[in-house]
């Protein structure tokens, strides 16, 4: 009996793995075809299924953000592009599309209300923290440390004065690189958890309740700082300093 159960479990696992492997390619093909034909809803749904299955690579998120922008789902698009840039700050295409998305969103707001905000600049600490992801900054620090050690020994054993001066300069440069890397890592770690407002027409609630009293408005695509979570609500601080609660489903967290 136990053996039969094990066999069945193994068979099901293999079947799921096989179907998952196939469907991911199919989903991508479907998304590519749908976006080419202008069926943005299908394209978005296919890519969302990929992301939901955990296949949230930078390319997939970039494609999803592009589809969202074309479908005028700007808040979700901003979230996708922000996540791409959080992982790969050098992703120029994502940076350009993020900018275009924000401009489109601002134009839509301006047409609706006569006023709009294109972009709000986060604090300097946050900007520094997002210069380099940890997968780059931590190896940079390690490399700098190793270089300092190696060059220090080389300096001690250098026979000529020229080699000694060169090794000293190398140690100094490595120390500088290491300090920069440590600063980037520390800034990244100290960066407050933030999120993107996914949809428009939202107002901060004074309490984490569905019938909470609404307060200041938050913009679609606006970056807010997460300070607390309670139930299905998150306490956030908006750009203008307003503090209140929003349903968690209306927020897209910007995590590593």
């Amino acid at each position, binding site marked *: 009996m136990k053996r039969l159960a094990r066999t069945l479990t193994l068979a099901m696992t293999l079947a799921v793995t096989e179907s998952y492997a196939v469907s991911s390619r199919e989903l991508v093909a479907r998304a590519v075809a749908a*976006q080419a034909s202008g069926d943005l809803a299908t394209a978005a749904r296919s890519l969302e299924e990929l992301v939901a299955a955990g296949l949230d690579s930078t390319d997939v998120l970039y494609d999803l953000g592009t589809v969202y922008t*074309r479908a005028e789902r700007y808040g979700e698009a901003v979230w996708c592009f922000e996540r791409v840039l959080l992982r790969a700050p050098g992703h120029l295409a994502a940076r350009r599309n993020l900018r275009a998305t924000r401009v489109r969103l601002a134009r839509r707001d301006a047409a609706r*209300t006569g006023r709009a905000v294109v972009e709000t600049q986060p604090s300097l600490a946050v900007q520094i923290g997002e210069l380099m992801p940890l997968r780059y900054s931590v190896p940079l620090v390690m490399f700098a440390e190793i270089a300092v050690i190696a060059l220090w020994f080389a300096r001690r054993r250098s026979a000529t004065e020229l080699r000694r001066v060169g090794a000293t300069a190398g140690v100094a440069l490595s120390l500088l690189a290491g300090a920069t890397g440590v600063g980037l890592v520390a800034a990244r770690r100290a960066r407050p958890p933030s999120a993107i407002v996914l949809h428009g027409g939202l107002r901060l609630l004074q309490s984490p309740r569905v019938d909470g009293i*609404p307060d200041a408005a938050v913009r679609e695509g606006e970056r807010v700082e997460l300070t607390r979570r309670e139930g299905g609500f998150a306490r956030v601080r908006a750009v203008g300093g307003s503090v209140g609660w929003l349903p968690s489903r209306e927020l897209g967290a910007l995590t*590593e």
Partner: protein
Amino acid sequence: MRRSSALAAVSALALVALAAEARAVVRVTLETSPPQPVAGQPFHLVYTLQVQNDSMAQATQLQFPGLTVLANAAPPSTANMMIGGFGGMGMFTVQSSAEYILVAPSAGRFTVRGAGAVNPQTGRTSAQLAPYVITVQRAGAAGTAQPAQPAQPMMQGFPPGMFPPGMFPPGMMAPDPQPQAPPVTVNDPDAPPTGEIGSAQYNPAGFVRLAVDNATPYVGQQTTLRIWLYVPATEVGCELLREPQLTGFWNEQLIDRSQIRCARQWFTQVVGGRTMSAGLVRKIALYPTRAGRQEIGAPEVIGEYIEGDGFFGQRRQFNARGPALVLDVREPPTAGRPQGYVPGLLGPLRITADLDRMSVATGETVTLRLRAEGNGYLGAVGLPTPPRVEGVRMHPGASHHEVDHSDERNVRGVLTAEYLLVPERPGTHALGTLVVPWFDPSDERYHTTTVPLPSLVAAGAALTRDADETREDPTVALDPFEVSPTIEAHRPFFTSGARVWGAVALPPFALALAGLARALRRWRERRLSARDDAQRNDPLSLMRQADDALAAGHDAKAADLAGRALERARKEFGAPATDAARDAAREAQAACDTLRFGGSGAARDAVEKVRAAVRAMESGP
């Protein structure tokens, strides 16, 4: 002849005197305003003294049996008289008046007595008025309450232009020439509400009062703010030193400030037992832009009025600050909110859509014009974007907003939004329907207006995609879609502080470990070496090494080791204690010296001697 001349002169003088005496007329009048007062409501009684060719007259004190006097005044007198005009040979007319504010407690006929005039020098009564009867009506008997008249008895008695320009000092506001207010019903929304004055701070010298007609509006719903200035006078000049702060409100001014000098309309109201004039100085349609507790900042008014007798009374200046007003603004309910609802969009809405041309060639631009008519907040909200249509490119165009103030209770807004359409393919393009959800505060429910958009007929060749892309605005152009994305899960390693700082600390830690290992190794080596050294310097050990050297044929080395063994024995065991040991040591030393300097082959013998000496020293006494 002389007698006749004198007679003529006397006759002329008599005629002049007779004429002068005949023209010295004193007239007293009483007049109520309104002519038929209403019970319980204040009315004005104007007491006028008019004198011709006599400068000495004093009106007598009036008696008001059964009436309540709210504002009493001194009877008119020649002391305050002014010249009203000249006529004939030295004839002149002067007039003065005083105003009383009275209230009749009930309907009926009330008699005012004592109206007349006396000569203050002679005490002779120069005029006497019959008792004046005032007929007071019941409240509501006439259907409409009498308006709170802008009472200004002083002004009524003087011809137009009596106040010359520049009469008021510079910097001071000229009294507002208050027009005769039309009769207003008791339901006039611009009249200050009766009852408690709310948060306004009563001041008999003048105060400001604010009120809104809806203290709990929805976001985007109109509520009208009215600001009244209360003063205890009828001739007032004023100016708003500070407008009410309206942060959190979209507002439309309903009073053209350039058309009024102080207030648009005046009312009379009894406040704290004192009759005061209340002037509507501001009327603003407010539309809250956010929910929650919203505050209207306090306005501040400066002005002046004439206290007492209208023309000769004292001029008083005042500074009044109104209270702040708090509104509890509600958000339309989230339950049942339709998809695509734009917050603040309140109905009812009337939307029309039209195209400027119904048939064009591909690539030409057509303007789709959406015209929405709703409340005054419409311009701040906007309309949803029309649906995108395959084969038609759409760009947002101009937007225009107008506000219609003709109905101040319900200010209307007209929003015109234009979209530029460019057909890219030939054929008939159905632009679909525009669905606009809105909230109606009257029934507190959501409604939807569905507007069918017209169809557009395009002729000609289809535009290519390249042409399309070259026309796209570069600021909103998107980089291309990645057609072959990497499909993999994003698994970051550095997700915790321990991993991050552990990785950062790894090279220094490894270096520290290596250094520690090296130090341990060195310490161990040193220790072993010391132990070896110690073992090598042991006399017995040295003797064993000497034996080994002898066995290997190294006699010189054996002799040297034996000598060192002897020295170590002396150091370790001290000087020989017994004579035998001393002798043995001496012989051993001599044998070693002989061996060292002689170089003979008696090494074995010398070693044996040393051994015996060492043993002797080791065994002690």
